[in-house]
Every structure is written in structure tokens, then in C-alpha cells.
């Protein structure tokens, strides 16, 4: 039986079936319902919830709990994720697994609490200092908020990386029917973690590599891991792409709006299609290149609530095709008709 719930609440349901045991958080609109639901569900299912004094502390609690072998997570929005940049870099360097949910709001600075997708570069390109990446899943429904969060813990442990659920204020605040998965995931054995036992006494969690040779070897190892992730976990959805000459590319809330837009175009006889990345790191660049090189795609419209951040990645994947940037900022979210109007306008500018 499906239950009506907010995307933010679905995250916590997904986390619990994903095997999360430790939640460390700090409230921020529009992500706070995640902390509220975690504060309710984690303690009464024998898990741990702690409200940290700051996002800086929260991400370092995660560093400790992940280092100790737990499946651990936090949730925030842009201003909080900015504060976590240092910890995210250490976590990447030390190769610890964890899950972070970013329910994006408008920025920069304090901005406002309405949806943007403008944390794309921060989250997809790393966020903190140094040469690293996060795995980044982009849900577009409450169901995916649940399912992707559950899956994220497996991915985090498989590759020992931070997995982001990059959401937005609408996907987080919107209620939809959600089917809760009926099996609970569990963490694999983690012989590398600090178990406070004689077997794990030799373990060291660190991101220091003092010699340039050691640091280089470590960074190339990370790079190999990211390449492996691209081969193994890149995920996307396609709608009407078989014969599409106009391809819409969008993620999260804008992918929902684009679905409606594409359906209306099809009803008018326009051969439009939609590619919706479900991961934006790794990015489905190979598939986009295929659609352009081997299919009828003549132009691409990337619809985003930022100034064209993912459009850069799309253009890199498909340098030979015209990539239109359909952007809204400040928390303004277009209707399907507004998307179609801007698409027509951009197409007319060729």
C-alpha cells in the first residue's frame, strides 16, 4: 500500500531500509523535515539521531561514525552544504562511505527557500578542496527520494565514497504516494574501519600522504575508482528518444516539468524526447554522445534552475550539436508552457 508523504520524509524511510544507523543533522529550510523524521524514526528503531551544533560538526560526526564503520548520513541545503566542504574533502581523502542529502534552495548567500538547482557545480564537481568526486543521484519524485537514499548506502560502501542525493525544494516539499521497499539493506563487513577491537587496532583513518609519490598514487587510485563508477553506476531515463530530433535534458523537478512539455510537443506532432540523468556524477555523457552521433538529435535543450551548469556537461558530451540553455533562477520554477515558449524562442535564434 502506498503512503502519501513528502520527499523529505521519504528520504528517512529510504535511509532506514537502506540500513542507516546514525543521523547527524542541523536544521535548515527546505530540508528540515528530514531531520524531523529522523529524530522521530531513528531513536525508536534503535538507531541514533543527534542534532549537531553546526553543519561543520555534523559532517565531522559523520567522519567519525563512518570511520567507526556505521552507515551514516546528514541532510541540509546549500548554505549548510557549503559549511561541510572541508569535511567532505577529508571524507573523500580518507575514503569513508556516507550519504548526504542536499535539498537545494536559491542562492548565493542566504538566498531564499524556493527551488534552484544551483548547487550542481558545488556537489557534482566535489565541493571541497582537492581532487575528488562524490557520487550524485538526482531524484525527481518522492519515491526516488526513498529508493535512491536506500540504494545510496550500498553505493557508498561499495566504492567508499560520499553519495549525494541532490534534491530541490519542490522534490523535498512535494507529497506523493510512496511504496516503501520491503527488505532492509545492511552494511557489508568493514575490516578497514575502527572497530575498537584487536583485529582493527592497526587501522588508520587519514587523508595525509606526506610524500608526493604517496599522494600521487592515492589520487590516481581515487581517479581509477571514479572511472570505475562511471562504467558501473551511471544511470538515466529516456522518454521518446528513439526518433527524437529535439532532446530535452533535465534532472529533478525540471525533468518532471519537461516530461509534461515533451508530452505536449508529441501531441502537436513534434518529435521531442527527454533524457533525464538519474546520476549526474557519473554523468551519462556517453549516452548523450550516442544519441547525437548515432540518432536523429539535431538540437538539445537543457532545462535547469541555474545558469546552465549541467548544460556545460551536456555540451562537453555533445560538442557537435547546438545546446540551448533554458534557465530559471531565484526560486522561479517554470510551467511546462513557459518551458515550451522559451524552447521555441531559443530555437528561433539559430
Amino acid at each position, binding site marked *: 500500500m502506498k503512503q502519501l508523504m513528502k520527499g523529505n520524509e521519504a528520504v528517512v524511510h529510504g535511509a532506514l531500509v537502506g540500513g542507516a544507523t546514525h543521523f547527524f543533522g542541523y536544521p535548515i529550510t527546505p530540508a528540515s523535515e528530514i531531520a524531523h523524521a529522523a529524530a522521530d524514526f531513528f531513536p525508536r528503531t534503535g538507531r541514533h539521531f543527534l542534532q549537531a551544533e553546526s553543519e561543520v560538526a555534523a559532517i565531522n560526526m559523520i*567522519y567519525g561514525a563512518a570511520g567507526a*564503520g556505521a552507515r551514516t548520513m546528514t541532510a541540509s541545503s546549500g548554505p549548510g552544504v557549503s559549511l561541510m566542504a572541508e569535511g567532505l574533502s577529508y571524507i573523500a581523502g580518507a575514503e569513508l562511505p556516507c550519504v548526504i542529502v542536499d535539498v537545494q534552495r536559491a542562492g548565493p548567500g542566504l538566498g531564499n*527557500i524556493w527551488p534552484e538547482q544551483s548547487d550542481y557545480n558545488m556537489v557534482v564537481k566535489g565541493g571541497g578542496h582537492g581532487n575528488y568526486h562524490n557520487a550524485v543521484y538526482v531524484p525527481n519524485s518522492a519515491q526516488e527520494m526513498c529508493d535512491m537514499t536506500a540504494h545510496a548506502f550500498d553505493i557508498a560502501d561499495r566504492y567508499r565514497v560520499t553519495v549525494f542525493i541532490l534534491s530541490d525544494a519542490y522534490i523535498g516539499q*512535494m*507529497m506523493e504516494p510512496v511504496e516503501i521497499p520491503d527488505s532492509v539493506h545492511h552494511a557489508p563487513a568493514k575490516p578497514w574501519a*575502527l572497530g575498537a577491537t584487536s583485529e582493527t587496532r592497526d587501522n588508520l583513518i*587519514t587523508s595525509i600522504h606526506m610524500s608526493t609519490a604517496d599522494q600521487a598514487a592515492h589520487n590516481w587510485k581515487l581517479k581509477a575508482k571514479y572511472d570505475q563508477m562511471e562504467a558501473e553506476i551511471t544511470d538515466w531515463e529516456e522518454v521518446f528518444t528513439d526518433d527524437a530530433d529535439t532532446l530535452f535534458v533535465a534532472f529533478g523537478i525540471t525533468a518532471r516539468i519537461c516530461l509534461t512539455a515533451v508530452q505536449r510537443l508529441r501531441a502537436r506532432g513534434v518529435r521531442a524526447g527527454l533524457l533525464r540523468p538519474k546520476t549526474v556524477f557519473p554523468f551519462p555523457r556517453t549516452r548523450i554522445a550516442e544519441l547525437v552521433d548515432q540518432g536523429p538529435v539535431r538540437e538539445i535543450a537543457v532545462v535547469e534552475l541555474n545558469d546552465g551548469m549541467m548544460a556545460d556537461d551536456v555540451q562537453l558530451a555533445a560538442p557537435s550539436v547546438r545546446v540551448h540553455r533554458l534557465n530559471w533562477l531565484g526560486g522561479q520554477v517554470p510551467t511546462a508552457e513557459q518551458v515550451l515558449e522559451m524552447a521555441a524562442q531559443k530555437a528561433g535564434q539559430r
Partner: protein
Amino acid sequence: MIKHKKPDAFYDTFERKGAGQQTTHYCPGCGHGTVHKMIAEAIDEFGVRDRTIFCSPVGCSVFAYYYFDTGNIQCAHGRAPAVATGMRRVHDDAVIISYQGDGDLAGIGTAEIIHAANRGENITVFFVNNAIYGMTGGQMAPTTLIGQQTLTTPTGRSAATDGNPIGMCELMSALSAPVYVERVSLGDGNRVLKARRAVRKALKNQIDGVGFSFVEILSPCPINWKLTPMDARKWLIENLEPAFPVKSFRDTGTPGAVATARAARDPSGPIPDDEMVRLLGSQSEIETIDRVTGLPEQRVKVAGFGGQGVLSAGILLANCAISEGLHATWLPSYGPEMRGGTANASVIVSEESIGSPLVDEPTTLIALNGPSIDAFEGSVVPGGLIVANSSLIDREPARSDVRYCMIPASKIAQDIGFQGAANVVLLAAYAAIEGFPAIDILRRVIPHALKKKNLVDLNLQMVDAAVEFVAEHPVAAPSAAPLPVR
């Protein structure tokens, strides 16, 4: 008794500067080696080496993990107390040591240490205070003395520019949770013996579950003080100790209130998987119906004052849709807008999966107050429906191409005995007019959706009253317009 043998809690050799090394990387006369040895000896004495996790900071002791043959984790600058907190919540029986210098603990990590202490985390913090930044070559620390010359206070620290040195033990003892706060000194042999006792006690407190222990150790840094090791100890006694009184600030010896409360909590761990699945899936057990297909997509805007139940009416509608096996989205106005101002909820119900959840052209507007009909009347599709609360709205819709129902919802609700349920009256009127949701489903969902179970009967009476009203006041067709289609 001072042992001269290397403690077991140290590795046999220190590999940092090459295989087989026997000495640490610390400078001649530095206090870190002494403090390391005290800690290692205490770990040996209590037999907790296997379950000890040592949190290295950023600073000269960043490489403590080359020496301590324990579990090791190296932390970002100042964050060790937060890292220790995270580990504390995972391993009840770990012995967790946060070892920090003055820049780390009293500067960049002030928030983390204060809050870990205030939570009474059962950890042990060793705070090595040498009044200067060592690793980066001798800059001002938060504990640098007034007049003390450093690379960033070349003419001496000035209170006017830099403020006064921070007394961390004084700050710690202003909190209620720490059970043990003491400042010791490495100024001479007798002082070292006292320091050793303090290190031991702070570790034992944790092993015994007594609570948060904090030992500040005044420690020499001859290199950056630009003194010989002997002169550095003299300078420490003559200058640091007067500024930072060496004494016990608190020593309860018994579990603090926080540790007691923590011990009293339910110790049962994670619930079994099947119980978890049941818990997460148990929230909705409404009998569903198989509805007749052919429902046009419903795009409903519910709008009114914050507090009129606008959002909950939308949730009720979406829950009815689920019970009829339909797709639904509910998108609220939220945040500050929701508190005190106007509120609206957008609900889409469809037999097919829903793309955009935005309702820019509602097929139905449910308006609870005047401003709502002013704001949204124009957006309703031709042939659409407006259900308006005529108790608070003194005009009929100006549109001639929509159907409308003026129902005194607030008055009906008040007459039944609960004015707060005008939203349910309006929703039920919509249901009665459109045939969706089925009145029967609405009646079944209300008991599940309401948090206040004592109001169920009143709300069901609202539904009856609305159905009766609609039967007695048929909705007029618009002058000329088709019914809304998908």
C-alpha cells in the same frame, strides 16, 4: 613511579622518518613526547589498548598515529571532538581520546569542543597548551600571552588588537556536564608527576563511564619560544602558570547527570528487519476501491489564510486519490509564507503518472477566503469549477465561463460545532459536485488522515452537510464553455 621502558601502547619503532626509528619527530625539549608517554602508560595500565581510538588533530601532534599502537583517526583542524562524538555513538565500549593543541582546540575548534563538553560526551580530551602555533612555525595562538612575540605578533600580543588569552579550563568549568576539568604543567619533575595522575584519572573516568574529562597541559615549545629546553621550562613556570592557574577546576569522581541519564536509556539495539518493514509500511491501511476509469486529470488549487487547513485539505484530497488507486501530487506553499500569511496547496490527481506538479491552470479552485478568489479566479480553466467559502467571500466569481458553488462553509462548520473544519466542508462540496473523490472514500480516509481522533465524527458531519447543501443547490453550468478536459 616513572617507567623508562617504552609502553606497549607505543609502536616498537616509529616509521615516520624512516624504518626502524626510535625517536619521535618532536623537537628537543617539546612537551608532546612527555604527554604521549603518559597517555601510553595509562592505556597500558588499564589494559585498553585494543579498544582505544586515538583522534589526532592538526598541529604538531598530527602524526601521533605513528606512535600510538591503537586505532587511529586523523581529524580536520579543530574537529576532533565532533569526530569523537560520531565514534562514541557507534562504539559504546571504545576508549576515545581527543588530543588537541591550542590552535586546534581554543581557536578553530572552539565550537566543537564547547558542544562536545556540553553534551557530556564520554570521551577524554587532552589539551596541550604551549601558547603558540608550533607546526606552522610560531604564530600567535588564542592562548599566546599579552606581550609575547610571535611571527604574527612581532611586537608582542596586544589586547587592543588580539584580545586576551583564552582560559579553556575556565570556559569548560562554566558548563555543567564535564565531570573532570584540570590544568596541569610540565614545568618540572613534580609537576610532571601531577600531570601524569591527571592523565590517568581522565582516562579512567571514561573507562568507568563517568563522563567528559578535560585535562589542559601547559607544555614548553623551546623552538618557537626561542629558548633552550631548560630556559623554556623556567619561562613556562614564570609566565604561563600565572596566566593559566594550575589547579583542579572540577573533579566530581562520580558519573555526571548526563552519564546517568545516558545509562538509563533503553539499551536495546536496532529493531529486527521485519519489525522495521512493518513500522515503515504500517501508516495507511485504508480499504481501496476500484473506481470507474475515465476521470479527467484534476488540477486543484486550495487557497486561504494560513491556519484555515488549506494544506491539510490538499493532503486529504491526495490521500483519497491514493485510495482510489490514482496518481497524486501535493505541492505546498511553505516556509515563512505558510506562517501567518496566505497559504495554498496544489494537488494533481491523474490516472497516469504526473509530470509537472505545478498547478498554473487549475481545473478546480477551492477558495477559503477573499484574497484567494482574487488571486486565483483568473487562472481557472474555462469550464472549470470554483468552490468558494461564501461565509468569508462576499462576491460571486466574475467569470462567466466557469461553474461555481458558493457554500457558507465556515457557518456550516460553526453550526456543527467546529469552525476549523470549513476546509472539509469545501472539499466535500467539491467531491459531491465532481464525483471525485467518492464520498464513501472521503468518509473512510478522514479517520486515518486526522491527527485528532476526537474530531472524526464532527468531520464526517461536515461531509454530510456539504453533500446535502450541494444536493439542494445544484451547480449552474457556465454560460458557454466545455467541461475541462485533460
